[in-house]
């Protein structure tokens, strides 16, 4: 029987190991799997490489994971937020590494990692500091840089609805990196706001087919990062 449900966020993340590469879904708070991130803080795995578009806000979720010194390296496109100095402080002190990747290149590298494409060419970053040192090749008279597929040991994602096969649908712009990170991770762990019976999600509207998902934990009323930040909350 295929049953990807697990009972708790703690159980879902229990095998994340020191030094693992972890993709974390979300663009800002939209799609951020905050309960799974907090479970990872409780677990305490260290020296992680984290792939996320941003670096979190306030002192909860991703920012708290970074603040807790569990992240050795961030791969992201925009490590700045109006309301968090966690990453900037550590970065300026040389206590965290940064691989800065243009947002579309980041998305395509993740998709390529999941799709078995080891490398591809893109015009993004040609002639800029982020293109320096990259292999350049011309196609039809235009220059492109070579970019590599990106994979991870784990992905932590949030979705709106899931079933026991791991089929997922998302909420509005919370979809963002979810479907491609699910493809690119060896073990994809999802917190779903609602669990559905098989067949309740129409096969025509499944966004992430279950083949890309390993574990589903139901978090019926996920916390909102902005609410926690406005309340001045910190984790743990």
């Amino acid at each position, binding site marked *: 029987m295929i049953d990807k449900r697990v009972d708790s966020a703690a159980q879902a993340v229990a095998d994340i190991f020191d030094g693992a590469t972890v993709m974390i879904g979300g663009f800002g708070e939209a799609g951020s799997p905050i309960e799974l991130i907090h479970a990872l803080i409780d677990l305490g795995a260290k020296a992680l490489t984290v792939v996320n578009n941003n670096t979190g806000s306030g002192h909860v979720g991703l920012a708290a994971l970074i603040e807790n010194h569990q992240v050795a390296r961030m791969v992201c496109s925009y490590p700045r937020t109006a309301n968090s100095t966690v990453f900037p402080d550590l970065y300026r002190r040389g206590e965290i590494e940064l691989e800065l990747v243009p947002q579309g290149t980041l998305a395509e590298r993740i998709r390529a990692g999941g799709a078995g494409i080891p490398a591809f060419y893109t015009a993004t970053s040609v002639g800029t500091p982020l293109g320096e040192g990259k292999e350049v090749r011309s196609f039809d008279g235009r220059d492109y840089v070579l970019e590599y597929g990106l994979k991870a040991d784990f992905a932590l994602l949030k979705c709106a609805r899931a079933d026991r096969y791991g089929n997922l649908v998302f909420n509005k712009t919370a979809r963002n990196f979810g479907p491609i990170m699910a493809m690119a991770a060896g073990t994809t762990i999802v917190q779903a706001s609602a669990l559905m019976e098989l067949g309740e999600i129409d096969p025509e509207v499944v966004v992430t*087919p279950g*083949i890309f998902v390993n574990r589903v934990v139901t978090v019926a009323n996920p916390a909102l990062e902005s609410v926690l930040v406005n309340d001045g909350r910190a984790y743990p």
Partner: protein
Amino acid sequence: MTVGESSTASVGWNREQMARRAALDIPDGAYVNLGIGIPEQVAQYVPEGREVIYHTENGLLGMGVPPDVGEGDPELINAGKRPVTAIPGAAYFHHADSFSMIRGGHIDICVLGAMQVSQNGDLANWSTGLADAIPAVGGAMDLVAGVKTIYIITQHCTKTGDPKLVKSCSYPLTGKAVVSRIFTDLAVIDVTSEGLKLVELAPGIDPDYVQQKTGCELIVAGWQ
């Protein structure tokens, strides 16, 4: 008829039995792509209690049994272009997403037919290479390059009695060193780093007979 006679009409496993034997090696929870022909039959024989999800590369995960005659939707078909159904929990997707599942190593097992398999696991199953043949490859090369485990179901020999398990394929390759296990009418054979290794015999078949019908050396060490 006894082992060693040249006709293989009734020795070893028949097609259904080959599919049944292969089905034993499909574990619970596997994501499986079945090729056209005998491989398709494997789905019927997976032992009860195992839940297996079938992928068809034209864009469906969770393929179910064929619809009753006169039922079905002509736009709900499998890779062999035959009508199928979708199980509860199925998902439709486009071709690039479908082949991302394949190329990205997300499908656990693919079962295919073969024209030839070499002793190092090379597979030829798409073209005779003859000058007047219309070449047609479909998804075979993507499947063998991307799926984690490739099983082959094939008659041990061609209709004219030539071995299909060979030192080196004479037909154009589908992929190099891609096959894990071969289910024939005579035996189950693994591709190992040392060569083809006999794993199991069909009833009434002995290792010498299989070796005689095989175009390369078979490892039978430890075989009783």
